[in-house]
């Protein structure tokens, strides 16, 4: 498959640095405080302090995919307003250093992409050819990462109450699919509808939808306790 087609069809065009060698960055750029440094710093804070991230990292380690910060995360400049992505070919989480300026945003993006990485690790996800698989992972990531909390939605001026979380998850999954794949809105909506119920109810590894840090801590506690739990059912 030639490079142009891959960029157009699989969203790689949003991440132009994926094809440039690391050595093209200048010495001066690297030595001053840059977006790159900020990204690396915020990533470390997210990994150290977020109960969402800690649980996902733990679950991935247990599944045989220990996440190594230098190998599996990459801070890069990206096009448009995209915040991050998961590159299944290189098994890397891309963080868009030019589009993430706040710690809370970084933490959310890290969680979102870790959910994709977790799905890649535990299941045969056909990211490139099976749109249902892609939709499912996007639904799960929007659902479980805190993307759709009331406050995040309010900040986007999307005000809603009763069952709004589901509307948000549906909408954000749709947007992600349309950004990454060359299909019509109608087709994307149909695919999201087909897999929504199944994927919205798949809460692995949290066991619940974590709406807050407290939810995530309870989920973490349950995860640590899983040996005793399943042994005594």
């Amino acid at each position: 498959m030639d490079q142009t087609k891959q960029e157009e069809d699989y969203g790689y065009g949003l991440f132009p640095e994926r094809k440039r060698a690391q050595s093209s960055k200048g010495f001066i750029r690297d030595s001053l405080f840059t977006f790159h440094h900020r990204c690396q710093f915020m990533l470390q804070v997210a990994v150290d302090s977020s109960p969402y991230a800690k649980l996902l990292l733990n679950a991935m380690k247990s599944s045989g995919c220990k996440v190594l910060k230098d190998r599996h995360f990459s801070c890069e400049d990206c096009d448009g307003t995209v915040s991050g992505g998961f590159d299944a070919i290189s098994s890397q989480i891309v963080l868009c250093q030019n589009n993430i300026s706040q710690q809370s945003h970084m933490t959310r993006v890290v969680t979102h992409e870790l959910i994709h990485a977790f799905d890649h690790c535990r299941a045969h996800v056909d990211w490139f050819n099976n749109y249902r698989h892609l939709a499912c992972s996007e639904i799960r990531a929007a659902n479980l990462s805190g993307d759709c909390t009331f406050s995040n939605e309010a900040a986007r001026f999307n005000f809603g109450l009763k069952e709004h979380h589901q509307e948000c998850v549906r909408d954000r999954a749709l947007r992600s699919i349309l950004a990454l794949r060359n299909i019509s809105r109608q087709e994307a909506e149909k695919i999201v509808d087909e897999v929504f119920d199944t994927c919205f109810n798949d809460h692995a590894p949290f066991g619940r939808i974590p709406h807050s840090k407290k939810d995530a801590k309870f989920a973490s506690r349950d995860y640590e306790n899983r040996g005793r739990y399943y042994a005594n059912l």
Partner: protein
Amino acid sequence: MDRSEEKLWRTPRPCDYYWSEFRHCKSLWNRFHQYYTYGTSPSCQQWKEDYHNCKEWEKHRSAEAKEALQASERGRVAEQRKFTPVWQLRKDPPSDWYMPLNEDKPQDS
């Protein structure tokens, strides 16, 4: 065999987990999140019953308490599994997860 199994059996969660889940379930924040997600009020009574059954087992090794607790937890597990996955789960992690990055490799599928 039964008696030794009874001696070995522990409650699936420590009793204080059930109590903290009950308190968390009843909280205003959780009630809001339940409505925001599902449009309903949360039902928290089961956590309270599980806590009492847990304490009953701890104090008196009650067989009824044990069975009730197990039934309740199995119900929770069944709720979480009430869907057919869209993908097949792996038996082993992806073989290239730790493969070194090759920056110069051209993108090909």
